[in-house]
């Protein structure tokens, strides 16, 4: 396995308390490590961006143990303890790295005064339009002004007026009056999105953020600037004025756009999703996600959702439907078209169904181009899940011509399709008429129209489950909103079918009960692993068994196929 690089620790003293922090940690992070809600307020510093040091909010007092300049001897006070030489002026915490013996005061009079001063200057030209500002409720300026500000304004001159409601790109709106010139958005565009389009023009209090002439903030990561903007200067055009953030419930989820599996947070109120934002996971997506991934919830809302279990067009209950499906499958000559979009749980029961009905299983690949950041070549979230579950042992083909041939030759009578539009994948509509189709899917389409049995499924936002991403990291997602009334989570229906096929009763009904079987049935999972016990930041699985497969992912933000292979090539314990 990987050898953890050895971390050097240094001891520093924060507000009279000694703490060990890794070498190279800056003061803002070091204070965060102390915990207890201690924080150095800051605007321009962002853990994943270069340090600009321009907001001056993170001032702290710093001192070093005194040494005699001539002799180099430690200077002691009357108690024999080395004296601390405090700097006469405060220093910025974001650009100060911890050094052995360093002393920091985060709450002295001088520090408080400087925060107060910085806040007053930031508010001089601020429009104070929190009632109409979308950032209200999650605005650093609002929070720190309340915490460290003076509470009233001494500024009686006329405020500067800057452009409001400027369009930076099709997804981002800029209000220049609110900008505090922290340059986070500029650094993000340059360093992470590699699309250097933003900059400041004019000087002093007239400094204004703007796009370079003839350019637009149009890249697929533009909405990350909205997330990191500490104030309401950059707002999402789509989310603008839709809902106040304090009404929204946050649910941890996983982006299904590609095999990167970016960690996300879904913001919903009363069963309606308003926005999706990234959630920090340093091993997967840092604090970023794609703009296209944020829009995926809209696809669920459009079109006609399948909302009823039907047999030959007649509405039935889920139990009746599962029984009918099992009966059909028992007749034999079954082909299953599974999906890399299904969760680990669903694939597990697909595999059980395949084993019990002696079916052949095919998967279709969903490949695209990579952008080298958070959109990988494999545009499905859980291909690795299908491998780990043993559903397939090879990478999928691009179409279903093999299955089509089988249907043609009469080797297949029943087709179980999970969420794939098979008529566009090599099985023509006429051919499809030759077989009985059991369709499990989200939306009505050509396949569901002619299917003998239709099982409506839930979207990733409506169910609990887990995915395995490109680096074999098992990550779980939670239901954010309820699905259509009466529709069960997909894995439960599949479980019912699998159960009926083996004439055994598996009491489950909850995802953790299902995991009792999954953990036992899949060698990659520890026997005691449960859905609930998958850590928030995901669980690394052992990929050794699959290293020889020619995965399509090459290189993106946190993944490099060559390096990944190399790191895992040596067997565990070597």
């Amino acid at each position: 396995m990987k050898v953890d690089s050895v971390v050097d620790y240094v001891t520093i003293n924060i507000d009279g308390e000694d703490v060990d922090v890794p070498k190279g940690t800056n003061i803002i992070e070091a204070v965060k490590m102390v915990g207890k809600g201690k924080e150095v307020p800051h605007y321009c510093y962002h853990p994943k961006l270069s340090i600009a040091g321009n907001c001056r909010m993170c001032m702290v007092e710093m001192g070093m143990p005194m040494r005699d300049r001539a002799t180099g001897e430690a200077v002691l006070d009357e108690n024999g303890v080395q004296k601390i030489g405090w700097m006469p002026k405060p220093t910025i915490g974001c650009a100060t790295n911890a050094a052995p013996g360093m002393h920091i005061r985060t709450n002295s009079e001088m520090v408080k005064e400087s925060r107060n001063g910085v806040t007053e200057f930031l508010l001089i030209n601020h429009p104070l339009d929190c009632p109409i500002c979308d950032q209200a409720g999650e605005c650093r300026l609002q929070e720190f002004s309340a915490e460290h500000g003076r509470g009233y304004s001494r500024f009686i001159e006329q405020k500067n007026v800057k452009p409001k409601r400027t369009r930076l790109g099709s997804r981002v709106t800029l209000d220049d009056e609110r900008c505090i010139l922290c340059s986070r958005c500029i650094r993000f565009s340059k360093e992470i999105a590699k699309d250097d389009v933003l900059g400041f023009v004019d000087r002093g209090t007239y400094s204004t953020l703007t796009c370079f002439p003839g350019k637009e903030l149009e890249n697929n990561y533009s909405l990350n600037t909205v997330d990191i903007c500490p104030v309401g200067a950059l707002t999402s055009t789509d989310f603008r004025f839709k809902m106040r953030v304090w009404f929204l419930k946050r649910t941890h989820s996983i982006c299904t756009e590609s095999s990167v599996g970016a960690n996300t947070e879904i913001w919903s109120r009363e069963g309606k999703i308003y926005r999706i934002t990234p959630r920090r996971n340093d091993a997967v997506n840092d604090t970023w996600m794609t703009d296209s991934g944020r829009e995926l919830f809209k696809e669920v809302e459009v079109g006609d959702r399948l909302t009823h279990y039907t047999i030959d067009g007649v509405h039935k209950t889920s139990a009746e439907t599962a029984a009918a499906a099992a009966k059909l499958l028992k007749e034999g000559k079954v082909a299953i078209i599974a999906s890399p979009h299904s969760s680990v749980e669903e694939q597990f029961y697909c595999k059980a169904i395949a084993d019990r009905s002696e079916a052949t299983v095919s998967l279709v690949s969903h490949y695209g181009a990579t952008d080298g950041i958070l959109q990988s070549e494999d545009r499905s979230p859980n291909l690795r899940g299908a491998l780990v579950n043993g559903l397939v042992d090879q990478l999928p083909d691009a179409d279903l011509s093999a299955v089509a041939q089988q249907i043609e030759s009469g080797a297949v009578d029943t087709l179980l399709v999970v969420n794939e539009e098979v008529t566009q994948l090599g099985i023509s509509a006429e051919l499809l008429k030759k077989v009985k189709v059991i369709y499990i899917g989200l939306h009505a389409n050509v396949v569901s129209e002619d299917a003998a049995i239709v099982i409506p499924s839930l979207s990733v936002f409506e169910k609990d489950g887990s995915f395995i991403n490109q680096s074999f990291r098992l990550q779980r997602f939670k239901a954010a909103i309820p699905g259509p009334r009466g529709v069960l989570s997909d894995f439960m229906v599949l479980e019912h079918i699998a159960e009926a096929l083996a004439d055994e009763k598996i009491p489950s009904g909850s995802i953790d009960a299902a995991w009792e079987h999954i953990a036992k049935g899949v060698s990659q999972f520890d026997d005691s692993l449960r859905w609930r016990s998958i850590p928030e930041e995901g669980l690394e699985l052992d990929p050794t068994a699959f290293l020889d497969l020619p995965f399509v992912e090459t290189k993106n933000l946190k993944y490099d196929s060559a390096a990944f292979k190399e790191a895992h090539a040596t067997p565990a314990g070597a």
Partner: protein
Amino acid sequence: MAKTKVIERKPLTFAEKTFIPQILTGLKTTGKTMFQKNITLQYPDERPSIPDNYRGVPTLVKDPNGREKCVSCQLCEFVCPPKAIRITPGEIDAEAEPDRAHVEKAPKEFDINMLRCIYCGLCQEVCPEEAIFLQDVFSLSGYSRDEMVNNKQKLYELGGTLPDKHYKWDKKKAAEEHGNAH
């Protein structure tokens, strides 16, 4: 252990036993009020005068220039203890209303469910734009639950116009036009 204290009841005097003193005291009050000015109002024909700070039905108000003051910040929706308020925020169409475009935001819909409202006045207290006031309307009736939900139009009808101390958004516009030379 608590001790029980027995209080002895005094026996009634003869006068008390006849009830006559009590009846006379009562009649004295009756006699006094008979010759006083009437204080009973013939409601609903006669209506009481409502003091200024009375907390009647919550209403939305406009400023003396006829401008909608609410910017749909949804603070009242948040603070309302029985969740009587329901707002759908919206954007002001800059082309349709250029003189109001700088306010950017206004409610698309604004409902107060008067079957829920407890007349606590917190919405009025929290409003940063001084747009919602509990005024003098105190009697409400309706034949259905829906009728008891005041929509935006009804709320402005009930609210009317109140004097404004700040003209915040007019000042904002003036500053915009003035600009600071640089």
